[in-house]
């Protein structure tokens, strides 16, 4: 979500996004501020990251070192109907990786971890069972 806020008569263009479960990013100019939420819903500031330059053509999402998975498993059984990523891609938390079809439902499996895709372990039209590994991250 992009918005403009004013603090002490100065306005800032900011962009708020959810990086992953309980990790939010507020982008102000060329700096990212990361927040998490505690049990009462209070936002807690985690850390600040700056980009070397705003003009950098390809920016890789830099996020704090929170626990994350190296293997993305499917919580649901189905037939692989679409693979949304390639080996070597850098994926963000929240990104759709695989669509599984089951009983005419479309189930998009998202990664809640981030990183570079090392290996895609499934093929299109393959049946996968619950808890099978879909992809591994480096």
């Amino acid at each position, binding site marked *: 979500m992009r918005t403009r806020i004013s603090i002490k008569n100065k306005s800032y263009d900011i962009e708020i996004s959810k990086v992953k479960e309980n990790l939010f990013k507020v982008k102000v100019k060329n700096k990212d501020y990361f927040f998490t939420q505690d049990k009462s819903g209070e936002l807690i500031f985690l850390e600040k990251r700056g980009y070397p330059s705003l003009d950098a053509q390809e920016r890789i999402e830099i996020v704090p070192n929170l626990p994350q998975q190296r293997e993305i498993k499917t*919580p649901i*059984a189905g037939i692989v109907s679409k693979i949304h990523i390639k080996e070597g891609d850098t994926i963000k938390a929240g990104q759709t990786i695989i669509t599984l*079809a089951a*009983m*005419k*439902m479309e*189930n*998009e499996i998202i990664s809640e971890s981030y990183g570079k895709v090392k290996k895609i372990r499934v093929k299109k039209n393959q*049946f996968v069972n619950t808890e099978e590994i879909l992809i591994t991250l480096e």
Partner: protein
Amino acid sequence: MEDSSRKIRFLYYSSVSSTNLKARELLRNKVHSWTVIVAQSQEKGYGKGENPWFSPPGGLYFSLIIPEISIKNIRLLTFIAAIAVTQSLRKKFNLEAVIKWPNDVLVPSQNTLKKSSPLGFKKIAGILVENVIGERSKNSIVGVGINTNIEKFPGSLLGKATSILRQTAKSVNDKEILDFFLKGFQELFKESEIDILNEYKKYEILRGRKVNVSFQDKKISGTVCDFDKKGALMVKLKEGRIIRILEGILELV
């Protein structure tokens, strides 16, 4: 299944690419459960596998955002929606609506002499449930298209599709049928898995029928004997073996 605050909010659009896509866009920016996205027409209405769903003005197209439920109950959403649509058509319009596993709602063709559609049924409504699932988060959208006041269908759908208007010769109030559906859906949502499956079986027509099924590059023939408790189709092959099918293309013999 599970209970939560059941207040329904409506969002109306004159035209969207598809109500399911609009629902996903809204979900990215946080939206309340039990929000209903209603459109007068869809530019890119789709069903399973991105098959287009004929969506001109005159039909009822909506998507319902479901509160987070456990993974094992997700597959019941298609069933709940199919039952709620079927019951709406039966109770409000006296139509003999039935369900073809898993997500099609049909009514008998008036002219059964023309064998243009399998079994002498025509499709009147369709359901597409889409889930976005991560390790910790689950979002479900139930998309429904009901042919309410559609007068004419294109040639490719003739003999295959019909509308409430064509069946009853009366125009219907979309909001009334939507409210009836939502009430039914929320009531079923509280029911147990076994009650939902039993209700589903009351209206489902595949049991006892011969089918050809294509799945995972295989083609088999057999007779549908039942559903297992996960809702998968159980097909009995000639040699007596029973296989379970979660996903495939069904062709009635």
